[in-house]
């Protein structure tokens, strides 16, 4: 009954789910770490949230290594996923090459971060440090690898839900790198909060990527649902885990620790409405035959509007709302176009995977 030949080896399917597990672990550690710094404070290399971060990265790195080794020396037909030969020996499918490089970079920057904290101590309030910047970018590469791994699949319902879950995690998880890059690029803009631009760009890119990749109304809407699960789950987990862990290791909570979930202000909880609206727009466009790129751009712009209005509303960032709204909408639309074009490339990845089956069988 399967409409597609099984041209993607099992190791890559299992590998994609392990990338998802690894990144979910990493993100849990990251959100918990943020909550810990706010509510309790002191930490060291071995605190529990940090162990989640390392474990997540470890799972991603080992998964990529194993998939590459099996692709190189395993039996059975060659993979249809576009691959590269590394050091004239190793056959690496692109998603797992990217993930492996991200995890390796993450490890190197973690080492440099340890040195940084030894020299400067554990204050992270002064802004992004060079090692945190490198960590954020490396983790973003791991996020892209996870999305690529699922973008190649999408054959069965569970694989498509895997993509939706990966996108839900990626949307929340992209805050760190996009915020840091945005602060680097847009700090000089008067009246505009660079973090709003960063979060708008992340939301717009990923939402339009899903629209372009799946080209159906179900999956943008489904990513809204998975986002609720991810953000809601972490909002319940992080404050409770922080309180429990502080008690367990005998650390007092800070005087003004409200123990409220920081993850709810780290990314607009109103985002699922935008994802749902993107689904509605897609359904309408399919019926009317409107060009998908217009919907991708509109979804991106909408993500920008939502981000600016949310942060303007809760008032935790200094900004001129009309100016920030215009900038976030324009950037969102631009990222929408970028997301669409990235989706075109990723779809081609999958088409090439399908097209290469006969060759792989002949070989």
């Amino acid at each position, binding site marked *: 009954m399967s409409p597609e030949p099984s041209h993607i080896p099992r190791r890559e399917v299992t590998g994609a789910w392990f990338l998802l597990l690894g990144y979910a672990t990493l993100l849990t550690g990251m959100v918990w770490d943020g909550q810990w710094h706010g509510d309790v404070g002191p930490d060291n290399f071995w605190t529990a949230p940090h162990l989640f971060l390392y474990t997540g990265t470890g799972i991603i790195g080992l998964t990529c290594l194993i998939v590459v080794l099996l692709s190189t020396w395993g039996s059975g037909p060659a993979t249809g996923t576009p691959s590269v030969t590394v050091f004239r020996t190793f056959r690496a499918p692109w998603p797992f090459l990217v993930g492996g490089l991200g995890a390796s970079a993450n490890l190197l920057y973690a080492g440099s971060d340890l040195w*940084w904290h030894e*020299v400067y*101590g554990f204050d992270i*309030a*002064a802004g992004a440090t060079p090692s945190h*910047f490198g960590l954020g*970018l490396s983790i973003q590469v791991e996020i892209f690898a996870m999305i690529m791994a699922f973008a190649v699949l999408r054959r069965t319902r569970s694989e498509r839900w895997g993509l939706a879950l990966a996108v839900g995690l990626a949307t929340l998880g992209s805050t760190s790198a996009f915020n840091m890059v945005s602060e680097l690029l847009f700090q000089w803009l008067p009246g505009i909060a660079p973090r709003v631009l960063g979060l708008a760009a992340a939301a717009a890119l990923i939402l339009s990527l899903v629209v372009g990749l799946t080209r159906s109304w179900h999956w943008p809407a489904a990513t809204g649902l998975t986002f609720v699960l991810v953000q809601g789950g972490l909002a319940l987990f992080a404050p409770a885990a922080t309180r429990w862990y502080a008690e367990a290791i005998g650390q007092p909570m*800070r005087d003004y620790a409200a123990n409220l979930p920081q993850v709810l202000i780290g990314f607009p909880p109103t985002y699922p409405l935008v994802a749902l609206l993107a689904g509605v727009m897609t359904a309408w466009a399919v019926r009317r035959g409107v060009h998908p790129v217009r919907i991708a751009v509109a979804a991106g712009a909408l993500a920008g509007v939502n981000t600016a209005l949310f942060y303007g509303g809760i008032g935790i960032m200094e900004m001129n709302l009309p100016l920030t709204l215009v900038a976030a909408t324009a950037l969102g639309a631009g990222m929408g176009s970028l997301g669409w074009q990235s989706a*075109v490339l990723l*779809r081609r990845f999958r088409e090439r995977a399908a097209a290469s089956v006969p060759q792989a069988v002949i070989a």
Partner: protein
Amino acid sequence: MKRALLIPAAVVTLLTLAGPAAAAPLPGEIVHTETVSMSDGTPITVGFTEWPIRALQSLDFTFQPAGGIGGRTGLVTTVSPSGDRRGLKGIVLQRRDDAIVLPRHPRAAQVWGLDVVSLPEEGTWRFEFAVENAGGTSTGVLPIQAIEQPGPPLGLSWTVALAPWAPVVALVAVGWIRTRAIRRGAKPGWSG
């Protein structure tokens, strides 16, 4: 005889009871103290877990007004050498305008304190204190010198950290340009 025993016993009891309130906070951690004269004559003892203070290096501060913190609200405005009145940044600091509303120190609840914070700029900082109680507000100022930051110059650290991304950006840019025809030539259909 009984009275002779009672007096030392009372002294010991008094010392024991008074001990914790008068004890210096964070024993073994505070390496230096400074005293700030306040306008109402009630000095504040400021404790530091690092001395001298190096720019960008984390430390804890304790602030102990004579007579304790009970019934008082402490405010400190941290003015950086370049004049930023919110010079000391923190992820969860409570503020009233530019001033930080002083919390109790997490590990020394009998005093106010800031834990794991850093002074990001080299030079002379001004800590402007205001203590509010039922009788009014007293003020005082403490200049604090932050010496040169530890480690290599920041520019070098940033260059080393960012350099590996230059080839990545170049590769992505080349890939993006080379796939232009594919991106432009995509079919606009809705079939997924």
